[in-house]
């Protein structure tokens, strides 16, 4: 089935079995293997990408559902020699051990910070009608869809905090 998806700024024409998830299209068809397959059931967050600027689990979406969409993967966030600030922050704060969850953590963090900037609430938001204050509890709650089995959570929080420009 013919589908065109703009990936990291480049329109990519694909011809796919409808069963192909967005994750598999990225990894297997487009060979963009930065996005990781963890659980393949939306529980771990390793496959998180940005679709039209919004973070989603690419494993729980069919590629054909994204005809015309703009997808950003970790390869589009930054590259070696031209790292995005959040990628540099993960290095500076030592925010990973094995690194398998890191592309998903970074894409999720970018989407999460955009949600905070748009004043979207979370379950840690006590005042639903006021501005969001990104406390550490807020930050951790908003990142709960991304697990890190090496348990680098304190450093992940520090890295995201560093690029957020927001006080705790």
């Amino acid at each position, binding site marked *: 089935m013919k589908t065109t998806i703009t990936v990291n700024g480049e329109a990519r024409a694909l011809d796919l079995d409808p069963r192909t998830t967005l994750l598999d299209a990225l990894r297997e068809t487009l060979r963009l293997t930065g996005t990781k397959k963890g659980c393949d059931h*939306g529980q771990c967050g390793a496959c998180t990408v940005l679709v039209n600027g919004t973070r989603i689990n690419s494993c729980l979406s*069919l590629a054909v559902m994204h005809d015309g969409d703009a997808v950003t993967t970790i390869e589009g966030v930054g590259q070696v020699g031209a790292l995005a600030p959040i990628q540099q922050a993960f290095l500076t704060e030592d925010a990973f051990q094995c690194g398998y969850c890191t592309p998903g953590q970074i894409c999720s963090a970018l989407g999460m910070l955009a949600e905070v900037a748009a004043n979207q*609430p*979370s379950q840690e938001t006590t005042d639903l009608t006021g501005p969001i204050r990104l406390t550490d509890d807020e930050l951790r*709650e908003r990142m*709960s*869809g991304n697990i890190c089995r090496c348990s680098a959570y304190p450093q992940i929080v520090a890295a995201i905090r560093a690029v957020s420009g927001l006080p705790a």
Partner: protein
Amino acid sequence: MRPFTYERAASVEAAVKSAAQTPNAKFIAGGTNLLDLMKLEIETPAHLIDVGRLPIAGIEDTADGGLRIGAMATNSHVAADVRVRSRYPVLTQAIVAGGSGQLRNKATTGGNLLQRTRCAYFYDTSKPCNKRQPGSGCGALEGLNRNSAIFGASHACIATHPSDMAVALTALDATVETLSPSGQARSFSILELHRLPGETPDVETHLIPGELITAIVLPPPPAGGQVYRKVRDRASYAAGLASVAVAGGNLALGSVAHKPWRAEKAEAALALGSSPVEAIAAELAEATHSSRNGFKIDLLRRLVPVAVAQANGGEA
């Protein structure tokens, strides 16, 4: 996944028409629950009708002071809407208590209502489950039933409905709007959407085949406070063990029945001047439990009075 064909519906009318004409067709919107189940071959549609881009995703004020929420509005969009946050805070609180940020960005209002149970026997295709395979039996009855129902269960099924959002909508007296394959639009109380399991737990709603939920309509908010409280095994991104939505004098309970459970006996007791402790005791008098989920009765006995007090301005 089993092979299937895919189409993107051009209109709401075309979607229901296609659903009526195509054997074993399913609507897909966000896909977060359906695709998960298709990977496990628990759901095996032959045809998917993508309704995710239909122009029924907006949230608009109604003439009587309520809100109409389009069925394709994402959970994130609804939770963040300033009118929902200020007038229906129980709905925002319930939505953000469910799933993860990534899931809420895809999951839709209509799809959230129609998600399937998280009962382990429904998911494990090596085990009996009357919901997944009618007539095969219920593994949960004598098995790992810690998260099973305490209201309205049958000998065929003790699964629970997993939605948080639906519990708030039930307390808010929401109305469901649909379009049927014959082109007929209808609306009915959310209390009439889901079925209790009875002998046919595989039939979960009163929707007719091919009928599409198009909107949820909220009446003006009831007088009094609102709150959603959820108890679960970890602090975030976990299905509930028990939850309660309070909206004025309305009470709905989550994760304790095959459908969001409107606690009418407790409401009646409260209306007659009973204390919240007495009120929830009246509701729990008809609760039943299996070998491992009796603790849910104690959870509700403690949770509901706290939530009612919190909704009325007391301490959490």
